[in-house]
């Protein structure tokens, strides 16, 4: 089932609650004309974590920021009492808050009122064209009346019961005798109504940014040997992991700083999955200082936990599971990334581009593992890629080519001073693209097989003029 969708999907007719197959059909998956949509699995813990980070960042606008108390929260609650003056008024505060979140590509709707309930209601149920609504003091009831009953944050069974009685707007609720509401609809309805009107106060549970974990070792007696550094670093890592474990979290990323004798060395260490295994972390750190020059006479060692995450629950085993290959790959990626750098251990991705050198991109394995996985590309995306080489030269090499007719296929070419006669030739495959990037690419590609049976990928460049060798079909 679809949990949520973007505006483009809504324009195509997708709505929350419809089956996934129907959503795919509406988005045109499988047709050549449609852009490939992305279908991501719902991840409520990750969503909550993201909302939590936003709450921390919104501390710029209010000292008290919380997350709504719902099973799947999607709203932040800010107490801006007295804060408007710091921003030149509440409207300016709201606009700056909106811009701040929009720069992170969030779609934001803001409601400001004396009560949390009314602010929530106007933020969720005002007109689409109005993304900021400020309710004047004392006008909560007037603003709430025309809104649907869902604006009162009622549970689905309560809403269903009211709909069954054809009560769909708050004004209809307010028309009913107040004393009869609890007996007919339970305590929830009256409580929510009173909260929205300000009769019952509500509190915001603040989301506080956790105190950063930083472990430091300093001494006037410098460290001069790797073994000594090993001991100190292991101690600091152990302390940091202990503090994380107390929070129920594991390490995801740390920064290590070594200072000494007027120089310093800094190294970030990223992990695929949160860990509390000190030996594993130390193994990765050692890969760094075994390879890179370190300051002499180290007088300060600092470890800062940059990112942590909840440790997944795992059943302890007496014997290791030989069939489980997953963690081995993760360990390999972490090891390779630690020594070679995150940018050297990559996952390839196909891009919808005709120009061969732009038809793919890379993402670091660690970032790829942390971000949500996209759906697999349809096989039809590779339909015309069968005739592509496994190794593509970073820069096409100019070659001298002879053709029988001026614009015709090659029949002989010269490479590294060696002339090759073309026995068979397939093409041209014309690629014309890139005019919107400012560099128009017009190439005619030929698969060329020599008398010896070797296969080459040549192209005639109509923009620059001349022939180039782009790859060998190895």
């Amino acid at each position, binding site marked *: 089932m679809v949990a949520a969708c973007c505006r483009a999907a809504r324009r195509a007719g997708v709505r929350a609650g419809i089956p996934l197959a129907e959503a795919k059909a509406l988005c045109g998956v499988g047709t050549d004309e449609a852009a490939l949509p992305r279908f991501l699995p719902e991840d409520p813990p990750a969503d909550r974590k993201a909302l939590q980070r936003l709450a921390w960042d919104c501390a710029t606008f209010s000292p008290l920021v919380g997350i709504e108390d719902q099973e799947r929260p999607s709203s932040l609650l800010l107490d801006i009492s007295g804060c408007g003056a710091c921003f030149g008024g509440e409207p300016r505060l709201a606009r700056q808050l909106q811009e701040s979140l929009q720069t992170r590509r969030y779609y934001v709707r803001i409601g400001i009122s004396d009560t949390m309930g009314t602010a929530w209601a106007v933020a969720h149920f005002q007109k689409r064209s109005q993304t900021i609504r400020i309710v004047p003091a004392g006008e909560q009831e007037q603003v709430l009346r025309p809104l649907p009953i869902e604006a009162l944050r009622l549970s689905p069974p309560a809403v269903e019961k009211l709909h069954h009685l054809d009560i769909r707007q708050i004004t209809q609720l307010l028309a009913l005798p107040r004393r009869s509401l609890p007996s007919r609809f339970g305590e929830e309805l009256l409580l929510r109504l009173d909260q929205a009107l300000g009769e019952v106060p509500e509190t915001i549970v603040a989301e506080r940014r956790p105190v950063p974990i930083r472990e430091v070792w300093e001494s006037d007696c410098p460290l001069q040997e790797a073994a000594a550094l090993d001991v100190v670093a292991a101690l600091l890592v152990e302390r940091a992991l202990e503090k994380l474990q107390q929070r129920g979290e594991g390490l995801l990323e740390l920064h290590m700083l070594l200072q000494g004798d007027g120089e310093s060395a800094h190294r970030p260490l990223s992990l695929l999955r949160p860990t509390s295994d000190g030996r594993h972390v130390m193994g990765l750190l050692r890969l760094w200082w075994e390879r890179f020059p370190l300051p002499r006479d180290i007088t300060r060692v600092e470890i800062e936990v940059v990112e942590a995450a909840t440790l997944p629950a795992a059943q302890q085993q007496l014997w290791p599971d030989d069939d489980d*290959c997953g963690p*081995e*790959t993760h*360990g*390999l*990626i972490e*090891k*390779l990334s630690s*020594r*070679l750098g995150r*940018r*050297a*251990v*990559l*996952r*390839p*991705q*196909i891009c919808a581009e005709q120009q*061969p050198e732009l*038809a*793919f991109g*890379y993402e670091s*394995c660690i970032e790829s593992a942390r971000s949500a*996985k996209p759906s*697999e*590309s349809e*096989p*039809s995306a*590779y*339909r*015309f*890629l*069968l*005739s*592509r*080489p*496994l*190794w*593509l*030269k*970073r820069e096409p090499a100019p070659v001298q080519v002879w053709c029988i007719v001026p614009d015709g296929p090659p029949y002989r070419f010269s490479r590294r001073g060696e002339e090759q006669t073309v*026995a*068979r030739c*397939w093409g041209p495959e014309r690629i014309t693209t890139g005019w919107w990037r400012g560099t128009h690419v017009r190439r005619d590609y030929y*698969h060329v*097989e*020599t*008398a*010896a*049976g*070797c*296969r*080459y990928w040549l192209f005639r460049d109509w923009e620059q003029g001349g022939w180039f060798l782009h*790859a*060998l*079909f*190895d």
Partner: protein
Amino acid sequence: MGAAAGRDGVLELSAECRRVLVDEFLPHSSGAGGLLIEWLSRGGAGGATLAFLLAREEQRRGAAVVVIDRHREFYPPAAAALGLDLAELIVVCPGSQNDALWAWEQSLRSRGATVVGPLEQVPVHALRRLKLAAEHGGGLALLLRPSRLQATASWADLRLAATPTASPDRVGLCRRVRVEALYVRGGFDRRSLVVDITDETASLSLVSELADRASADVATRAS
């Protein structure tokens, strides 16, 4: 014997590719891991394609496939068209020869990984380390090396030379490659076989070298 079937432009392989390209030469290690296989070929010969087809088969069996790409010339769309799952592929781009050898060794030590990539001339003891790493991890090392290194010593279990031959007279993109075993651990025969790789119909077929030149497609193409 295995042959390939095509579907949606992906080079489909039967599960017998390894049997055809490796186990036939190394019968005593049929299906086993911990092998170092060298593919020696000149540029444009097709050796890398056959190596990646083997890697794809290993990936289907659950192995992690790691490509060591020191010169950043690996082209993922072609690997995807061969049927490799890019979401499970790891591409390592080391900055130096030492880092490349280290990456090879660490990847092979990882349980059951298949590691593929070009490897220029390296000291013999480096190949010995790779062999030990492959034995430790139980995976498969597919070293793509230039044919001029045929005369150098090696610790590989199997050294295969891929030589292009004139493609059969067929319509469409088709290439014929002769695979010759230059060295087989524990064996003495210099055996060879000839395969046809047809891009457009996405098929791989073993060519019969008996009498007549016509190639024999041994298994049917799947619909």
